[in-house]
């Protein structure tokens, strides 16, 4: 196989990790929305914690993205 083709396949494979982050963000948001609908008074606190949780879940996807970008543009 030619190296350029291998690079493209590798970058595509690296992004598989985004699956987990997508599921994670969905779970976090679903829990937060349920909590907010049950107790609208604490919406502010829940939102802050929800954004934090999303940021942590998203970080994994971002690592995948960085690896994919490194494969594509650096190596």
């Amino acid at each position: 196989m030619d190296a350029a083709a291998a690079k493209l396949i590798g970058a595509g494979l690296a992004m598989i990790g985004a699956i987990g982050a997508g599921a994670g963000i969905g779970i976090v948001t679903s829990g937060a929305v349920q909590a907010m609908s049950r107790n609208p008074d604490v919406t502010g606190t829940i939102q802050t914690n929800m954004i934090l949780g999303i940021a942590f879940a998203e970080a994994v996807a971002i690592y995948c993205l960085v690896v994919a970008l490194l494969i594509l543009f650096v190596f």
Partner: protein
Amino acid sequence: MSEKVQGGWRYGKARWVVLAAIIFGLFLFTGFFGVGLGIKPIMPHVFLPGENLTEHPMFGIEGLYLTNTLVGLLLADLIVFLLAFGVFRGVQSGKLTLTGFGGAVEALLEALLGITEGTAGKWTKQIFPWFATITLLVLAANWSGLIPGVETIGLVHHYEGHGNELIKVGPFQTIWDNSHAGEEAHGDYAIVPFLRPVSTDLNFTFALAIVAVVMIQVLGFRSQGVGYLKKFFNFGTLFSKPIFGFIDMGVGLLELVSEFSKILSFAFRLFGNMFAGAVLLFVIGSLVPVFAQSLFYLLELFVGLIQAIVFGMLTMVFMSQATQGHGDEHHEGAH
């Protein structure tokens, strides 16, 4: 309503029809005739590190070049200074309630202060400046990439084996996409933009992350003194409770590792989001030359704001965690 329309030429409605026709015409032209004539949008070459604008290092220091991301940092700084100046003028005007620009900034900062008070408690005064400064600077840096002309206007530089071909059109020279169906463009020239948003440079995000994590430790020591180290080196229960003491020690060492992984996670989150956003705008712009990019501009506006708030908020939450004691002792007024 119907009487007004009858027989009347409604300018308001016709305007939208004309606009739609123009956009549709542009689509048709670039889609069918443009590519056939060889006029097609050029996919800019993507460089991961900031590109050097000058041939020689600055001030004669080895390896210190004027990169376009450094110019982007100056732009972001300028935006923050203008923000500060606008608020200063609003305060100088002597009105009790700020209006207009100053009022908008006040509302933003008040929202940030509210979040900080909810989390940090009595350490709000020490933590809020870091939160607000990081959020404002990163927001300015992220959104500076959306200003038209940033990342697009620049000089053609020579890059061996990268980019496109150089051709002459009358008295001018320009780069030219010489690719044919199914193969890549070849050439040695690429446009190096004068400006690039600074958050697409790993050096900036790493520097900001190191500053944030070091200040988290500083605040931890300020609030708890040397006892802050107990969070990492927890040998106190090692001999009194052999099994759980050992687990406590392991947890402490994991905390130590997680402090270092915070730096990586901070830096790569911001860099990854913003760099991917820039590449996304490049790709969409080269696929569909008109209109489609606007939708992704909206997405980038949102991502830039979220990433700025997330960077600031994570710093703030880690700082307030560091100031609150670990384990049994609960400081009063911490919540």
